């Protein structure tokens, strides 16, 4: 299996020879930043296109098919259109906060994506509290929604923002608790260590029914945390026109849009990493031959396959279910997901203690 650290090491070596250690460090940071920005921009464009196509197929339509072959350039065209649109601001809007909100939400998304392990040795920021870091950072995004909803001086967006506040704060708990079950099993918060612990099989298969339950809960909570699907309270098109970003236009709106899809990617990536082994190929116990064949598929392909699968499921939710009402959403969290999650965590802790997992 190709280790990407060979590539990164050789770049590091070359830069260290060419310039001072400080200069090399700064150049490396710049390269990583640029690569991540380019990756985010491209993947969001791809995701928007895929989402529109998937939605179209669910709805017996063809989807975008005019711009470029199969409509592949549609999102690029939309992006260019959004770039050129006028910035409109309501008269009594809070100018500073109104401009700050889209940046805040995008920053939160970027902070999180830095810690995502894309492949073997391909992780920008392998912090030893990785799971904790990602959940902490991704909850900054809700500040952007709250500020954006407040600053627009629009009652619809204010309602949307407050809904979103209540929603994200409650579903954060579920998402973290379901991640904790794996942390308990793996005994580590570091993402690379969690992946390493799945060398002989993914946690979803190894961890019996409790891990399956926590995976389902993670999917639900993740969907809610990204303000998507049946939980798009903050947007709620048929109730609040466009929710918290009603007043935004042009590139500022595009930033909200971008952040939504980056968050979708991050949630799927974290789910894939923690529950499905991230870039780790499908290994079954001690079947050496089988494991060896699986190793021939590059790690980055495994990662994107798993992430794509989870994104597909989340999209499937969105295009099938009606939206919940805000109080039902909270009832679902506090009366169903949270108690189940706590009991589940207890069971997993017990299993780990007794060493009953595979």
């Amino acid at each position: 299996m190709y280790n990407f650290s060979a590539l990164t090491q050789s770049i590091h070596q070359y830069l260290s020879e060419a310039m001072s250690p400080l200069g090399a460090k700064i150049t490396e940071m710049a390269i990583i930043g640029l690569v991540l920005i380019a990756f985010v921009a491209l993947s969001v464009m791809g995701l928007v296109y895929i989402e529109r196509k998937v939605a179209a197929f669910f709805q017996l339509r063809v989807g975008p098919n005019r711009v470029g072959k199969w409509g592949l350039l549609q999102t690029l065209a939309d992006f260019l259109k959004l770039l050129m649109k006028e910035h409109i601001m309501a008269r009594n809007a809070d100018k500073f906060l109104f401009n700050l909100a889209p940046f805040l939400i995008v920053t939160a998304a970027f902070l999180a994506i830095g810690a995502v392990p894309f492949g073997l040795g391909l992780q920008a920021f392998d912090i030893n509290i990785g799971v904790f870091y990602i959940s902490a950072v991704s909850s900054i995004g809700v500040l952007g929604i709250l500020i954006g909803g407040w600053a627009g001086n629009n009652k619809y967006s204010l309602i949307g923002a407050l809904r979103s506040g209540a929603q994200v704060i409650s579903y954060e708990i579920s998402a973290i608790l379901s991640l904790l079950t794996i942390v308990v099993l793996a005994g580590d918060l570091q993402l690379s260590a969690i992946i390493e612990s799945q060398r002989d099989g993914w946690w979803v298969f190894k961890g019996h029914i409790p891990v399956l339950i926590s995976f389902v809960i993670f999917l639900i909570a993740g969907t809610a945390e990204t303000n998507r699907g049946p939980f798009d309270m903050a947007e709620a098109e048929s109730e609040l026109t466009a929710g918290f970003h009603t007043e935004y236009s042009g590139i500022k709106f595009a930033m909200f849009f971008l952040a939504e899809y980056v968050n979708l990617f991050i949630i799927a990536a974290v789910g894939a990493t923690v529950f499905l082994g991230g870039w780790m190929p499908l290994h079954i116990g001690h079947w050496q031959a089988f494991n060896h064949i699986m190793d021939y598929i590059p790690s980055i392909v495994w990662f994107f396959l798993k992430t794509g699968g989870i994104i597909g499921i989340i999209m499937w939710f969105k295009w099938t279910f009606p939206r919940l009402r805000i109080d039902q959403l909270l009832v679902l969290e506090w009366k169903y997901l949270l108690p189940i999650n706590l009991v589940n965590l207890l069971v997993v802790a017990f299993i780990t203690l007794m060493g009953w997992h595979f």
Partner: protein
Amino acid sequence: MSAVATYFKDIFQGLKTLLTGMKITGYYFSHARKEIITQQYPENRDTLKMFDRFRGRVVMPHDENNEHACTGCSSCELACPNGSIEIMWERIVDPETGKKKKIIDKHVYHHSMCTLCNLCIIACPTDAIKMEQTFEHATFDRKELTMILNKPGSKVRKDVEE
């Protein structure tokens, strides 16, 4: 049933109904190639055929001698609810019999006002006008929507008079 049992039953029932819904959308997603219902409009222009009763706009058929069947009786004008038909007629002296008679000068049709209700077609005693099955009627100039249905120099067919 105890409250605990109801609690878990609710969860499983709910999950089951959600999965049934996902099964249906999943079927359509996986069979999208077969099930897609939308048509690709400008591409299918050649194969797109309207039903023969489709009401596109009012036309007046002319035969090869540039003759039509409109006597200028104004029935359609009276039947029209929106005033989208105006008949301009004049009296001429018939060269053969020497009698004065009323002929049609212009059959003006305002497509922009027409609601395509078909009342004029039914009112016409000589079947001089009919509905055409075209449907691409957008123009850049509103004036183009006012049409004169009888072609210049056209005459009334002999056999339909009176």
